[in-house]
């Protein structure tokens, strides 16, 4: 997802941000926030139903494959349909936006626990979670930062970042997300000077 050079740049951006705010920012990036396995089967079922219909219609008109070929061909259509549904585009087409945003919210919270963002003493951890398939950016703040990022201006920023994440330049989108989050955090929780970083990793790339 990200080359070594891009990772280094993102980590450097987060390090620079730490000079302006007490919040401990971690960026997590995931290819997707759920397996969406049922989409495979939905795709398979749709194609199998279409192929079966076509084969049966052919039979009515006397020009179709021998009858005994129908079950294996239908099964094959299912497999092909399931494989076709694996692409990001099909995944987005065959799921509801509400389902995807719930997946993103849950996966972000799990990443927050896994990355140790919620384990800092001063509870000033902030996870910026980015999920590519869903084209979503979500910020999960710990108790000490809660309520300081939300609001109308933040919603506009979120929308802008989500748009950037769906574009081709992932590195630029990440740097922009860090910059925008940083601007807000520098105002809400300005650097007071003391305290080293407690969370081990600045950038977490999820499989």
């Amino acid at each position, binding site marked *: 997802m990200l080359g070594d050079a891009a990772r280094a740049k993102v980590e450097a951006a987060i390090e620079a941000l730490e000079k302006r705010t007490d919040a401990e920012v971690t960026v997590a990036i995931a290819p997707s926030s759920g397996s969406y*396995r*049922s989409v*495979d*089967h*939905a795709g*398979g*079922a749709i194609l*199998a*139903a279409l192929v*079966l*219909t076509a084969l*049966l219609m052919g*039979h*009515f008109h006397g020009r179709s494959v021998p*009858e*005994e070929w*129908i*079950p294996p061909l*239908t*099964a094959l259509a*299912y497999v092909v349909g399931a494989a076709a549904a694996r692409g990001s585009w099909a995944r987005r087409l065959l799921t509801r936006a509400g389902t995807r945003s719930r997946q993103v919210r*849950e996966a972000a*919270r*799990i990443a*927050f*626990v*896994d990355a140790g963002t*919620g*384990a800092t003493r001063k509870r000033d951890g902030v996870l910026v979670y980015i999920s590519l398939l869903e084209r979503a950016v979500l910020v999960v703040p710990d*108790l000490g930062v809660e309520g300081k990022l939300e609001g109308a201006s933040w919603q506009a920023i979120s929308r802008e970042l989500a748009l950037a994440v769906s574009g081709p330049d992932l590195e630029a989108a990440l740097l922009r997300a860090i910059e925008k989050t940083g601007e807000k955090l520098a105002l809400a929780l300005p650097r007071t000077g003391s305290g080293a970083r407690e969370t081990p990793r600045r950038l977490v790339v999820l499989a």
Partner: protein
Amino acid sequence: MSIRDPGVIARIEAAVAAAEEKTSAEVVVAIARSSGGYRDADLLAGAIASLAALSLIVYSPHFDVRHGLVLPIAAVVFLAATALSSRLPGVRRLLTTSARRRRQVVLAAKLAFFEERVAATRDRLAVLLYVSLEEGEVEILSDTGLDARVPRETWRAVTERAFGSGAPLEEAVVAGINEIGRALAPLVPKTVEDRDELPNRPRIR
């Protein structure tokens, strides 16, 4: 008797209060119906059943079905098997691997840890006992304050003693809470200034 019955809930709540008598740690119990969407298993069951029906119609000499009825029959069998699978846990169990079910339970436990605010205690001395009914699995997650004072093996031993015995689930949950209290009492003893920071009532998810 179901674990979600008011009587059982009250017993669990009382067990949590009793365990917290002996330790300044907080015990949080969360009970989930299921830890993941297993819709794909339901759809797979539907696909297998309708392929079987289709094969029966085509290959068996005992079935003579008009062509026009083949598609409706396949569709009805698909929908019926999908609905049946979502109501019978045995089917989903057959069509998913135990490793996947385990993974789902661990992820859902972490989500419950976040959403039930287990990390909100002052000294970070809280432990979550997460019970997932459909998978019949439990997971114990502790906050950082406890991690520093309680060896990790403790939780595995507690899980094995309480849930490895094959006792009915509500008995196992109460036993698990008692075991957690017993394990924490010497390591994180009760202090005078200890307050009850998190509700004792189990969270139904």
